[in-house]
């Protein structure tokens, strides 16, 4: 018998997950990939479940990816986003939580600009809460889909050298990648302008490259982060042109690498800033594969969390009934 891996009520980050839990999510995502390839891309497993996608920050791709995942599992979904909702009318997250609870929803997928917001919500409602990005903290499903993509193309994660390039300071994608990849035994590094590398990052078990050439020399995988254009106004970098010159991932830079390097990017891309088009569209880019895997990962997470009801342990004894 395969050993059963228990999941908690929520997925707020990869920091708190065990190696077994992460591996299980990645494994369960595999068959979900196939569902999206069928003519009828739908299974009834979450039929009758109500899921709210609560997006305090604008996001198209993450929200759409979650929505596809939810719909392919037959859940009923409602989207609440920043504009046009009580969110902008100043309703506090506590009150939003209470209202959702009163409507008896089963799961909430939350995107919020404040670190810790997903945990905050999770502690206050009985529904499952999935973090779709909280401030600069974590974006666990993005981390998982990056890991699934690396595993698909590299044959595994353990021992692989992965460098995350760009604005590490403000990136929840970076943190989820670091937690997840290091747990599964990858060697992880970060690279970017020193103003965008947070203090104490080494204590998360990663090494720091100050120059992108060194990172390219070392890495087997580059996860290139989006450079938020606001960072320039806030004075973290002098100009986009300069960023591209010193940290942009270009074909010329990659040609000097001692090996082929797998290129990931969580999107949306600023072509010509952090990544050049020839790299983004090149033979070693798996950026679109990440998008495909994103739906499978989110289906796997929804599926694994949805089963967590209190009656479950009791009834598990009847499992042999067929």
């Amino acid at each position: 018998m395969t050993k059963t891996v228990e999941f908690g009520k929520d997925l707020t980050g990869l920091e708190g997950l065990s190696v077994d839990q992460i591996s299980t999510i990645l494994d369960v995502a595999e068959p979900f990939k196939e569902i999206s390839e069928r003519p009828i891309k739908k299974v009834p497993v979450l039929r009758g479940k109500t899921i709210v996608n609560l997006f305090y920050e604008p996001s198209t791709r993450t929200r759409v990816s979650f929505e596809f995942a939810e719909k392919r599992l037959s859940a009923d979904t409602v989207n609440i986003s920043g504009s046009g909702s009580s969110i902008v009318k100043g309703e506090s997250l506590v009150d939003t939580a209470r209202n959702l609870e009163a409507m008896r929803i089963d799961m909430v997928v939350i995107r919020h600009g404040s670190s810790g917001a997903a945990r905050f919500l999770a502690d206050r409602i009985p529904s499952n809460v999935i973090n779709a990005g909280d401030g600069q903290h974590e974006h666990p499903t993005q981390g998982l889909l990056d890991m699934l993509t690396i595993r698909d193309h590299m044959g595994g994660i353990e021992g692989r050298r992965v460098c995350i390039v760009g604005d590490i300071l403000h990136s929840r994608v970076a943190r989820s990648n670091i937690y997840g990849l290091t747990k599964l035994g990858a060697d992880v590094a970060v690279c970017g302008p020193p103003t965008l590398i947070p203090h104490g990052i080494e204590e998360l078990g990663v090494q720091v490259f100050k120059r992108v050439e060194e990172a390219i020399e070392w890495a087997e995988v580059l996860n290139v982060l989006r450079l938020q254009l606001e960072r320039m106004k806030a004075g973290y970098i002098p100009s986009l042109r300069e960023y591209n010159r010193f940290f942009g991932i270009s074909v010329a830079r990659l040609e000097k690498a001692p090996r082929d390097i797998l290129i990931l990017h969580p999107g949306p891309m600023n072509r010509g800033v952090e990544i050049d088009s020839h790299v983004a569209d090149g033979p070693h880019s798996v950026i679109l594969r990440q998008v495909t895997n994103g739906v499978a990962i989110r289906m796997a997470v929804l599926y694994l969390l949805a089963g967590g009801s209190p009656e479950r342990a009791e009834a598990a004894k009847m499992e042999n009934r067929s």
Partner: protein
Amino acid sequence: MHSEPNAVVMDERAVRRAVARMAREIVERNAGTQGLILVGIHRRGVELADLIAEEIEKSEEQKIPLGTLDITLYRDDLSVIGPRPVIGASDIPADIEGRAVVIIDDVCYTGRTARAAIDHLADFGRPARIYLCVLVDRGGRELPIQPDFVGRHFEVTPAEDVAVLVPEEDGRLAVELRKTE
């Protein structure tokens, strides 16, 4: 109390006889192998489907399309038993539109697995006919579903479990009766 906890109720020979008979019945009912597809349900149904396909191929000298179904995501009891860490692939090798599909499983009990399998098949197309074939019918149905081809009937109480053993999973071919507690 039973002194022998696991009573063998069908040995390998008995299982093979039942499989051969069901293979004949399937071909007879379908008036040949025309349009026939066998689909085994993960995991033991898949091996039984292999055995049945072998029998049909031997007698009819025809290759039969053979598929697999994993019905995990079609079960109606996710919130009761929780998610499974392993979900197998569903692989239907041919277009099932207008054909006769035989769903093959090890045991028929509540009927819920068969119901889930029928739903699952519907996502692949609209067969002309769906048959249900099981090695053991142990009774205790909770849904109006009856198998078309049955290896053996056993009246078994809920406190007992019928275990079908197959070589790939269990190292041998047999059917055992077990006390669940």
